[in-house]
Every structure is written in C-alpha cells, then in structure tokens.
C-alpha cells in the first residue's frame, strides 16, 4: 500500500453527482498534479457523507477528519493550497461538528469494541493493498503454513465463536461435522442474504471490508476440505455484489484464491450467487435450494447441511459476520476472542440500531452489555422528550421487550429466555407513542407475506394470526381472541418446518406477555392507549383552546369540521375519517385525540 499523508473522501451520492461531484474529483486530481502532491494525497469515492441536499457536494479529509461541505471545483485551488500546502483548515467550508459524517456508522462510541467493523471507512474496499496493510491474509498464510485443518477447527472451538446469523450454533462444531462428513466434494457457503428489515450490518461489511469475509471463507474451506465456495448475496445489495466480485478477482490475481494458494497444494475458488427477492432464502436449506436453481423452500433437518448440503454434498454455511471474525481469531488467538463476552456468548456483535433512538446506525458491542447500555449510552437515549416503551430485537421474528427487562445482559441465552431472539442484529427502539398491538400486526403482515407456503402451520397459521390482530386493531376484538392468539402461536411455533414459522409468533407472544393491558384495552374497552389505531380514536376540538381561526375546517378533506370565525369549531364524528390533518395543522393544540 502506497503511503499517503492525506486521504480525501468525496461523496458520490446520486444527488452529489448531480451537483458536480465528479467534476470536483477531476479538478482535485488536476490541482494535486499541478502542485506535485499526487503522491501524498489520495482521492477516493465514498457512497455518502452528509445530507446531500443541504451539504453536497461534500468531502472529508483524513487524518484530520475535516468535513468540507457545499464545495465545487471552483474552490479546489484554494482548498489545496490552504489545507494541503499550508496545513490550515478552510473554516468557510468546514462543516459544524453537529453535521453527521457517516449516517450509518459513526466513530466508535464509549462501550463499543470494533472487531468486525474495524476496517470499515478506514480502508479502500476496492483495493486489496489496503487490506494487506491491515494484516490482511496474514491469518490465511498462518493457517496454510503452520496449522493443520484440525488445529484450525480447535482454535475456532476454543474461541467459542457462535454463528452470527441468529441461531448461534458453535461455528467450530459445524466445521468439525463438515470435516468429518464423508465425501471428496465439499462446499463452503457464505450467507449474505441479509433480509431482516432494518438490518444492514452485513451489507456494510461486504461493501467496506470484503476481503475479511473472503479470508474467513478461505480458512473455513481449508479446515473442512472444500474446494468450491459460494457467496449468496441478496440482489437488493448491488454495491455489495460488485465490491465482492472485485475482491474475488483481486484475490485470485494475487494467488490467494484459486489453485495452489500461497504456493501450497490447497485449492479453493468461489463465486457469487444472487438472490431474486425472497426473504425465506436466508434460511440455510432454502438458500441451498435457491443456489441449485429451484424454489427457495426450506426442507426438514436433519440431515443437516454438514452432512447433506448443496447438491447433497457436505456443506458448511455461516453468515458474513461469522466469517469476518475468523481471520482475527486466528491472528490474535482464541484467548483474546473469548476474553470478550459472557460465559456462553463470546466476542462482539454488530447491531443496526433504529427507531425512536437518538443515535441510529451500526454499532458493535461486546456480548454481555445490557440493553439499557446499548439504548441509553451507545444509542444516546430516546428521541425527543418521550419515554422508552419497548425494544424489538432479532428482526421480524424477534420479540418486544419492556423497560423491566432492560438490564438483561445481551447474549443468545438471555434474550431467548426473555421471549426474544438474538437474530442477525436488527434492534428497533420504540417510544411511548407506539401501539404494541399495531406493532404485532405490522410484523405479522411481514411474516405472513414472506411465508413460502410449503408447510401449513406457517402458511395458514400466520394468516389467521394476522386476521385476528387486524380485527383487534379495527376495534372488533372480542372475548376469546387473546386465548386464540396464544393457542395458535403455540401450534405454529411447534409445528412449522423452519425458523421463519417457528419464530413468526414471537412478536405476538412477547407483546401478549409484556403488554397484555394494551390488548385488553383494545378488546374490552375499545380504546387504543397509544392513540394509534384509527378505529379506536376520536378527534375532538377543545373549547377553551380553539380560537376559531378556521385552519382545520379549510384543511379537512371531507368537510367534517364546521364553525364560525372566532367561534369554537366542531368535528362531525359521523363524517370524520380520522386522517389527523386537523391535528397537524392546528397551531393552538386545540385538537385532542381521545
């Protein structure tokens, strides 16, 4: 890797491009050549820095981390002279500290430990030399020259690395089974079908540090004795696919992938397979069916993929984050890795923090941290002045946990016992304005839609759960609904074929367990305590506060509001469609939701 004293990241977000980002890059190059600085200052493209509408085109200059905004090619000569020759920050263009730089991944906050995300934003993912400079492929070299496959498996077993895709099965054990399985042809698969809405940890790893995943896969291939690998990436991630493709090409040209890797007799090659938009393909047996060219439907296990996987051959399948951990475990040792975390869950976990929390985006924390620390210390607490209500972990098949469980340490077992799951790492924080029945309905809508339809409990059961929840939200809930939800959830959980069906009732079961009062209010009192479910709320104009300004009446789309100027207005409840526009436009807070 050439040594540059400065690196300039230029945002090439579509809006920045429209505003002249590429002209900016060209003129930066021209000016750097003119000043003889081309060997000292590197210019790189990056997907997005700040808000492009307001700040674009914008650049960040490292190592200082100065964020220059609204900069065009006119400003370049001055910028180069001031910043790179005289070493002075051009205050006029420098963004205020409050402007976010990377909206998805900020600098590490207190309590974070970056293992999987350590290189992201720091290296050029499209240049293998940058990865070399971060000890890249050293672990592969060590494995191929100093360790037997059994040693590698033992190291991963000792590290107690567990699958980061959600189920948390010990990776070393999986590798051991695949190694012991009979057959000459074996496969390695990387599950990059990150489908949980709101979860994008794996996308950032593939886009920002693709070689760490590749290296992890090569090491796993050596350990189990595979010669061919596949990365199954969802088609919704075109940038991840192209970055990964380039990484494979570069690794192949360097002899790190292909025949006789690093001069040894180890051969391993891999290719990318793209999904075609099916959530269930994240399930391992469905994923393999999809690679084989069929409908992505899961099948019953056993036999497990380690014995009978892709095309019936022994196959090891782990997700992106699991493989990305591997090179560092080999280099730094299992003791280092297992020094982080709890007794049964070692290392770190990435999460995508979303919802009503101040700092959204990617984080990486050691196992054993509490939910409260994640939400209030790393996440900065709840947006606005609102109160925390629930946190949903584990994606659409996870559960919602209340305030009383916030001090639980985060690991696979504890979350499971509390009625949720670790999942792949989505974490949605909800404030007091969220209706938990509506949330259960929302997630059920998703799983019902994504059910592949192969087994009856999932196909029919989730549909039936959704119907009951819709009925309750519409104010038509009745005696017996709660019992039916419980009974159905139990049946779906026990009898479904794969994780999708088995996990589908979690949002319902967990909200029933922790927020039963809200279900009862909907069903027996016909009331939505969070004032979300339209059928159960009413808009009313408050006598003392209404000034008779007529704004609400003029904005009502159905003409339900009447009243003379300077007189208190009235909403005709028979006409009102509860769209909430009057509530939004009233400047005197005179419209109440009851």
């Amino acid at each position, binding site marked *: 890797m050439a040594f540059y004293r400065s690196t300039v990241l230029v945002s090439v977000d*579509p809006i920045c491009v429209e505003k002249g980002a590429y002209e900016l890059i060209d003129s930066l190059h021209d000016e750097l050549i003119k000043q003889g600085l081309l060997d000292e200052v590197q210019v790189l493209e990056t997907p997005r820095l700040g808000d492009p509408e307001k700040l674009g085109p914008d650049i960040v200059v490292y190592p200082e981390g100065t964020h220059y905004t609204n900069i065009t090619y006119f400003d370049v000569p001055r910028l180069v002279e001031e910043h790179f020759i005289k070493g002075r920050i051009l205050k006029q263009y420098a963004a205020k500290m409050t402007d976010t730089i990377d909206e998805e991944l900020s600098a590490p906050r207190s309590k974070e430990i970056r293992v999987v995300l350590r290189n992201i934003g720091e290296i050029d993912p499209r240049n293998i030399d940058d990865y070399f400079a971060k000890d890249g492929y050293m672990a592969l070299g060590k494995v191929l020259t100093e360790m037997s496959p059994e040693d590698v498996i033992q190291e991963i077993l000792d590290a107690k690395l567990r699958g980061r895709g959600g189920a948390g099965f010990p990776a070393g054990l999986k590798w051991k089974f695949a190694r012991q399985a009979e057959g000459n042809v074996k496969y390695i698969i990387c599950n990059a079908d990150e489908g949980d809405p*709101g979860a994008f940890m794996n996308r950032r790893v593939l886009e920002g540090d693709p070689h760490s995943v590749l290296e992890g896969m090569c090491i796993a291939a050596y350990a189990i004795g595979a010669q061919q690998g596949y990365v199954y990436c969802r088609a919704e991630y075109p940038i991840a696919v192209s970055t990964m493709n380039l990484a494979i090409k570069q690794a192949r040209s360097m002899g790190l992938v292909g025949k006789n890797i690093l001069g040894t007799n180890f051969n391993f090659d891999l290719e990318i397979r793209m999904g*075609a*938009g*099916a959530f269930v393909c994240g399930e391992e047996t469905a994923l393999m069916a999809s690679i084989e060219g069929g*409908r992505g439907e899961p099948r019953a296990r056993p036999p497990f993929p380690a014995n009978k996987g892709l095309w019936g051959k022994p196959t090891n399948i782990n997700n992106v984050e699991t493989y990305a951990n591997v090179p560092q475990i080999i280099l730094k040792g299992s003791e280092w890795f297992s020094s982080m975390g709890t007794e049964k869950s070692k290392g770190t976990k990435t999460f995508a923090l*979303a919802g009503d929390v101040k700092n959204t985006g990617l984080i990486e924390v050691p196992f054993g941290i509490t939910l409260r620390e994640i939400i209030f210390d790393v996440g900065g607490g709840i947006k606005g002045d609102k109160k925390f209500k629930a946190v949903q972990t584990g994606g659409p098949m996870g559960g919602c946990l209340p305030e009383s469980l916030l001090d639980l340490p985060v690991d696979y077992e504890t979350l499971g016992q509390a009625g949720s799951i670790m999942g792949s790492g989505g974490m949605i924080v909800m404030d007091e304005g969220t209706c938990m029945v509506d949330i259960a309905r929302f997630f059920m809508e998703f799983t019902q839609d994504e059910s592949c339809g192969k087994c009856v409990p999932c196909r029919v059961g989730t549909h039936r759960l959704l119907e009951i929840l819709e009925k309750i939200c519409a104010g038509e809930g009745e005696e017996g609904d709660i019992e039916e939800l419980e009974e159905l959830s139990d049946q779906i959980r026990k009898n479904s074929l794969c994780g999708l069906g088995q996990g589908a009732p979690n949002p319902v079961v967990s909200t029933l367990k922790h927020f039963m009062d809200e279900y009862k209010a909907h069903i027996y009192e016909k009331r939505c305590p969070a004032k979300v479910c339209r059928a159960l709320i009413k808009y009313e104009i408050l006598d003392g506060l209404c000034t008779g300004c007529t704004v609400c009446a003029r904005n009502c789309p159905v003409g339900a509001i009447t009243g003379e100027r300077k007189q208190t207005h009235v909403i005709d409840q028979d006409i009102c469609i509860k769209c909430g526009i009057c509530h939004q436009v009233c400047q005197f807070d005179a419209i109440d939701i009851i």
Partner: protein
Amino acid sequence: MPSDTLNKEENILGVQEIVKRIGSTRADLIPVLQAITNQFGFISQTAMEELSQLMNLPTKEINSVATFYRMLSTQPRGRHVVQFCESAPCHVVGGREVFAALKQALALEPGQTSPDNKWTLLTTSCLGVCGIGPVMLIDTDMYGNVTPEQVKEILSRYE
C-alpha cells in the same frame, strides 16, 4: 423494453442469447430468468417454452420458480418500474405519506401497470439503506430521504 412491442422472434432470440451467455444447467435457471426479466421486463409464455427446450426442463417447473421470487415477473411491466420500500424502518420515518403521494401521482396500486405502459408500481423488501429512509427505487436509480412533495418532480425526470 415495453411489453406492447414485445416481438415473439426477438424474445426467442434474446432468450437463446442469454442461455448461451449464462449457461443451461439447472443452477443457471435463476440468473437466466433474472436476465430475461431485466431485458424484456417480464418472462413471457414464449420465453418459458423456449427455455424449456434449451434447458431441458418442464415449463411448469420453470413457471414454479419464476413465480416464487419477487424480482422475477411473469406479468408485463411498464417502461419504468418504481419500487417503494414498505419495511418498518422506512414506515416509521414518513414512508406511509410518501407511498400515498406516490400512489396518487401514478394513479396506481402496488402491482399495477399504467395503461400507457409507462409505469409499474411495486413494493420492495428492505434495501438496507435504512439511514436514508424513506427510500424508493426507479429502475436502478435509488432515491433516499424522499418527501411527499418531491415525488412528482422525481417522476418527471423519466421519459
């Protein structure tokens, strides 16, 4: 290519060319179907019959795969495909209002194609760019932080 000008001969030649480029083994089926969808907008009955010959698979088998995946289409699509993300993270940051504005501007419900074959409106699964939601995709152009007011202007960029 708009469906109303889909020429049977061109369709067959296109399918043959795609199979030649990608391959004709069973594992090539999904990439082939994706390429056909990209090139012709959808997988026609003609295309399926031709594929059946080339790949030595029953048509019903091809149909069962083509109808399983969201990104493969067996229905004609418009010249431009608008995909709106309806997942939770976009939903909670104003996606609902943007989607309403989009449906109104196009006068379409999800899954429908406009009578002039210009637009098809679909919903998409999470695109993983939740930091800039609400998000929509027109063909391969991604738009983030969309507001209801911007919808008409964005649509007007397409011929």
